[in-house]
């Protein structure tokens, strides 16, 4: 007897109408390519009236016929009846076909894509599959998405403290072939807890639950509560499953389609995004006790040990060294904090930085190191005090204090301070004043008198720059105002001439007076009329000057008389002629 061990699956199936007590089913071949068909043969050793076609998502069943025959078992021929059903798959996967009779177990059909090994390879050539031990689902876990998946959150059963970090496990079970994808990592419901980062590569294994093979993904993480209270924890994760969307009548119609392509097109199978959740887990979160809480407690919860060291061991004054605080143990390292030293006498301190190295995959166990740079201000043997670290131990339920031992460090003197100290003849450490003058240094100056409030030179100060700027503007304005012009030059020459004429008139020197007057007027008219002086005639004078031209001509004649006949005009005449000349020189006579 050829028997196929199947895995029970809670798929839909109709109860067989046969009243036969012994029947079984076989699927040949049990592994086919997508696009091919397999044959399901129901063998009954009694009268098998009819069997109802099963309903399995992804498979199309078609009755091929029934027959009678003999089945050989242990060399004995036993009359049997057969029902043949063609099975055509719509997609690849492993399908569990329920028994079609009350006594027949389920059978399995594997459908592969075309690029996988030859589907017609006989089962004898395939490696024997180890039987999978079927177990029950964990307590409280329910199958969802039509039995295709489950989610289980393994949370601690005991009460935990605020800030305490506890390991948790999240298991996601998926039936391959039905669940097509996991669309996100599991998340916790509620904002009162923190979950450490989940890996995108969870642990993976195959396990049978209640007769069906599941791919189980497991995430290990740590959970911490942010405030006390009673909570119901659950997790959820989005997945995509293939669900049949056709009615019974539509499925029956699809089953009679002969072309697999048409069957696929009319299958009504579509992936659907859903979110599955775990069952609720009750969790009690206790507040940290206030009694006995240290003043400088920073909130660390766990079980820790501390250690400190320095690097390098010896330095010179002014050189930096690093003080390291190691905190090892188990617990919530996110709440492990240390400000190290805010202030240290004779040391210059800098802000500390921290780094964490986990010892496990979830960061529940590990070592956190704080590093703080320090610079010694003076040479000599220095003592760095021990560091104190307070934490709450949920195991002992009390606050505990861990302290590091003080560290001695030798600070060597720097070269510069050593040179000056050697010159001064003293061996005092840096910073200690010494008496007496330092050889090579010139002595102090007497009591200072004048002082300034700003070391910047005057010419770099904006207020002072106003002085030279103002001065330059004044001088520039003066220069423009005093700049010689043609009119000014002319008036000066005129003044000089008039002064000479006046002097000649006062002296009674008529020849000089009239000569100078004639010469000056001729030059003036020549320049004014743009013509040579010797071409200025009486007609020209009369034409240009009118009546005044006659006076000017008379003056020219008097010049000749004065030169040759010693003509002596009176004072009144001199003044009259001076007025005429002045008028002509200034241009008022025209």
């Amino acid at each position, binding site marked *: 007897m050829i028997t196929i061990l199947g895995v029970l699956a809670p798929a839909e199936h109709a109860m067989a109408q046969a009243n036969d007590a012994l029947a079984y089913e076989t699927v040949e071949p049990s592994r086919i390519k997508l696009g091919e068909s397999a044959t399901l043969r129901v063998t009954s050793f009694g009268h098998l009236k009819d069997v109802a076609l099963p309903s399995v998502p992804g498979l199309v069943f078609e009755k091929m016929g029934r027959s009678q025959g003999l089945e050989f078992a242990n060399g004995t021929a036993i009359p049997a009846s057969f029902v043949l059903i063609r099975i055509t798959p719509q997609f690849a996967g492993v399908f569990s076909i329920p028994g079609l009779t009350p006594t027949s177990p389920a059978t399995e059909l594997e459908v592969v894509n075309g690029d996988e090994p030859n589907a017609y390879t006989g089962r004898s050539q395939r490696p024997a599959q180890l039987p999978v031990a079927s177990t029950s689902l964990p307590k409280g876990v329910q199958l969802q998405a039509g039995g295709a998946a489950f989610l289980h959150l393994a949370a601690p059963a005991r009460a935990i403290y605020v800030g305490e970090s506890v390991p948790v496990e999240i298991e996601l079970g998926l039936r391959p072939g039905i669940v097509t994808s996991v669309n996100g990592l599991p998340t916790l419901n509620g904002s009162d807890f923190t979950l450490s980062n989940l890996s995108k590569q969870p642990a993976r294994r195959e396990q049978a639950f209640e007769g069906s093979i599941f791919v189980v993904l497991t995430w290990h993480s740590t959970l911490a509560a942010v405030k006390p209270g009673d909570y119901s924890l659950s997790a959820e994760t989005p997945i995509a499953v293939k669900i049949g969307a056709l009615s019974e009548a539509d499925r029956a119609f699809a089953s009679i389609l002969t072309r697999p392509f048409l069957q696929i097109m009319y299958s009504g199978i579509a992936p659907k995004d859903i979110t599955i959740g775990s069952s609720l887990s009750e969790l009690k979160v206790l507040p940290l006790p206030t009694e006995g809480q240290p003043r400088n407690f920073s909130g660390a919860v766990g079980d820790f040990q501390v250690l400190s060291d320095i690097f390098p061991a010896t330095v010179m004054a002014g050189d930096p060294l690093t003080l390291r605080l190691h905190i090892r143990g188990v617990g919530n390292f996110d709440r492990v904090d240390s400000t190290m030293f805010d202030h240290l006498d004779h040391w210059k301190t800098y802000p500390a930085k921290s780094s964490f190295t986990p010892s496990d995959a979830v960061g529940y166990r590990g070592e956190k190191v704080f590093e703080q740079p320090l610079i010694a201000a003076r040479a000599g043997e220095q003592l760095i005090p021990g560091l104190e670290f307070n934490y709450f131990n949920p195991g002992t339920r009390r606050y505990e204090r861990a302290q590091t031992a003080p560290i001695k460090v030798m600070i060597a003197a720097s070269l510069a301070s050593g040179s000056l100290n050697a010159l001064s003849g003293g061996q005092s450490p*840096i910073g200690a004043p010494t008496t007496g003058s330092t050889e090579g240094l010139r002595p102090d100056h007497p009591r200072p008198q004048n002082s300034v409030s700003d070391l910047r030179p005057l010419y770099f100060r904006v207020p002072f720059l*106003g002085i030279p700027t103002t001065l330059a503007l004044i001088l520039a304005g003066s220069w423009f105002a005093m700049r010689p012009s043609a009119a000014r030059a002319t008036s000066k020459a005129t003044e000089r001439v008039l002064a000479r004429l006046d002097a000649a008139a006062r002296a009674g020197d008529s020849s000089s007076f009239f000569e100078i007057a004639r010469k000056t007027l001729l030059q003036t008219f020549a320049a004014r009329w743009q013509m040579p002086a010797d071409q200025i005639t009486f007609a020209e004078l009369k034409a240009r000057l009118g009546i005044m031209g006659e006076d000017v001509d008379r003056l020219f004649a008097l010049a000749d008389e004065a030169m040759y006949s010693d003509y002596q005009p009176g004072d009144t005449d001199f003044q009259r002629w001076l007025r005429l000349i002045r008028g002509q020189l200034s241009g008022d006579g025209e």
Partner: protein
Amino acid sequence: MLIAGLALWAGQAFAQPSKPPYSVDGLYNLANSYARSGKPGLAVLSYERAALLAPDDPDINANLAYVRASAHVSVKPRNRFVRLAEAASPTSAAWLGVLGIALVGIGLVARWVAPRFLWIPGGGILLGVALIALTASNAMLLWPRMREAVVLIDQTPARVSPASMGDTAFVLREAESVTMTAEHEEFILIRTDGGLSGWVARSNLGAVVPQVAGER
């Protein structure tokens, strides 16, 4: 306008009574005390400040050179032009510049007023230009020193970034003079005489010319 400018300058000069006064002798004596106390950085800083006010003081220059030599800090020698240009104190040079401007301006104006005596205003113009050139030289040579600082702590690290945990690019000796080129929060970007640049904590440096609060 001249009077207004003078009044403004006087007001600014006397308007900051809270600022500590600097005097040549006071800074010199302070530097001596730092030097005797074994603090070459602070000593050099005070000597530099005193030298700003009295660049030709032999005591200041001698002690400055001595302390630098003791701290094994080198300094670039000054050439003759630098020594000549820095012979006058900045204050004297500033007023000489004003005098030079006045001489040039008066000389230009006097040419028109007394054209017969052109040699007098001409000489005044030349002298004025010389005084202005002296002032300008003095200012040009002192300008870089406005951005100078002295390292106050030995083995001060100069970092590649303005962060206390930044990598150390090189180390500065105490009393070394550097030039400040930029600043970022509590760090200052400095450049050494050798051309190296790095970020140094502000507290490790002493600016030769303290900046006015409003200018930071």
